[in-house]
């Protein structure tokens, strides 16, 4: 499983998984995109590069999601594929995507609420995050 959505009273909570930290981050991008597009197909025609640094993995994720919401609000861009490389506390992302073919959803902001990023086993990483919608 790449990601799943969990119960939350007001907003959107998800978990994403990966065999590596990079993959778990990439799947967090896809979880966010899946909510934005509501499962509708994406016209993949653009490639975005994002380079960010943070104080810890959580702030890297917060900033990455923040970038995705910025791209959505300004260009209608939704991710369909993500390649993530994390070295230390620097993240480089190549995000492929474009506009949704259906009516998209809106997300106000990424949040730190209940957020965690952890290694849960050998070749198992897990991310949890809540989006304010």
């Amino acid at each position, binding site marked *: 499983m790449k990601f799943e959505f969990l*119960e939350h*009273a007001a907003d959107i909570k998800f978990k994403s998984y990966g065999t590596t930290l990079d993959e778990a981050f990439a799947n967090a991008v896809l979880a966010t995109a899946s909510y934005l597009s509501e499962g509708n197909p994406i016209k993949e025609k653009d490639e975005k590069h994002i380079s960010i640094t943070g104080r810890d993995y959580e702030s890297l994720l*917060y900033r990455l999601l923040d970038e995705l*919401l910025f791209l959505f609000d300004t260009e209608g861009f939704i991710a369909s594929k993500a390649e993530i490389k994390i070295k230390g506390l620097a993240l480089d992302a190549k995000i492929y995507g474009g506009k949704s073919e259906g009516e998209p959803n*809106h997300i106000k902001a990424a949040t*730190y609420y209940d*957020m965690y990023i952890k290694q849960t086993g050998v070749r198992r990483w897990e991310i949890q995050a809540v989006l304010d919608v």
Partner: protein
Amino acid sequence: MYKDTIKKISENEYKIPVTGKMNVPGIVFVSEMLLKNVDENCLKQLANIASLPGIVKKAIAMSDVHLGYGFPIGGVAAFDPKSGVISPGGVGYDINCGVRLLLVNLDMEEFMGKREQILSEIYRNVPSGVGEESEFKIGPEDLNNLLDNGSEWALSKGFATKDDLDRTEDYGRIDGADHSKISQRAKSRGKNQLGTVGAGNHFIEIQKVEEIFDERVSKAMGLKKGSVVVMLHTGSRGLGHQVASDYIQMMEKEYGIDGLPDRELIYAPIESELGKDYRAAMAAAANFAFVNRQLITHQIRKSFAKFFPEAKLDLLYDVAHNIAKFEQFVIDGKEVTLCVHRKGATRSFGPGRLELPEKYRGIGQPILIPGSMGTFSYVLVGTETARSVSFASTAHGAGRVLSRSYATRNLSLESVNADLKQKDILIKAGSRKGILEEAPEAYKDINEVVRVSDSLGIGKIVAKLKPLAVVKG
């Protein structure tokens, strides 16, 4: 478990005693019925607020409280300006999310004859969904001007009247706003969204004044039983959200996160440079929200005018329910200025306050509390009691009880639509999801929420409004 330690003080008041790092107790203004829906995490968020530096007397949760970020939604706290802090998590991502109400001078029968056409016209003129751009094209200079001057900009451009400004909280312009404290990213996110309602729980609703509870106050506000009104609920859109995210990150960088009970509760001392910058940015984002509601009002007026050229839509009032402000209180017999955070709470000023326009100085400030889709909304009036009981604050809405995903999975569009049809409510929505997520079942009982405010005397019920037609994102 805070649920185990919480103590009933009176009919509608519960207290979380000071434990651990709390500086003051937590107070929850709920009835027994509403307390059942308040979960442990929500009480923990209230206890977290109580641990912030410089908090005065108590951390408060209003009757519509539910889980938020940093503060719970429905959270109110006041801070000493010298020793206290300001927190983006105490204002919310949607800075100056708020509500306004317009009085329509049409007979109910006249309006009902054109109800469907007017609803469609509003739906066409006011983009409500996601990613829709407004017809207002705003250049960089205009954007800076409106961030600094709020509704005064709208007045200068012919999108507002003097009366509109008079009947907007802070006259549609919060002092100290500074566009240079807002990032280019925030401006880029917001500029094409000006004049749009957005998704989530935001809406435009045409309503009927169903019942009057206070004749004198209703009359002063211009509310007549059986008359038509329009309610609008929206905020600062992507611009405000970005300002919140930007300052959360800047405060992390400046102060670190050690010892924070919740990373969303990051703060800056009120007197610090960063604290002052956030205030100026928040004020500018709040001005953006006032202008947003004003431009939408302009479009609603245009939509009515197409069918009724003589129609007049006068603003009753516009309230901000996500904001931090400096206001005067009497604490231990002394007059003091405090920084009040209202995160999903409405200001409740009683009669005589000089901040109120002359029209309302005799009766108190109008309080607008929207219900959920298909349920009643309420008009209340501010009280002097609120000043001493709740830092001049009261509830702001219904408050969610069902998660969005649960609502989408477990409610059917057919049954929600059938329910709306049976209540004779027309709806135009951007998506199926928009209807399901906001279904009345997903919310607390609004009647009980306002009853608690009324019983506590922190907002007296004036009138009940019934929905006739709704536009949702």
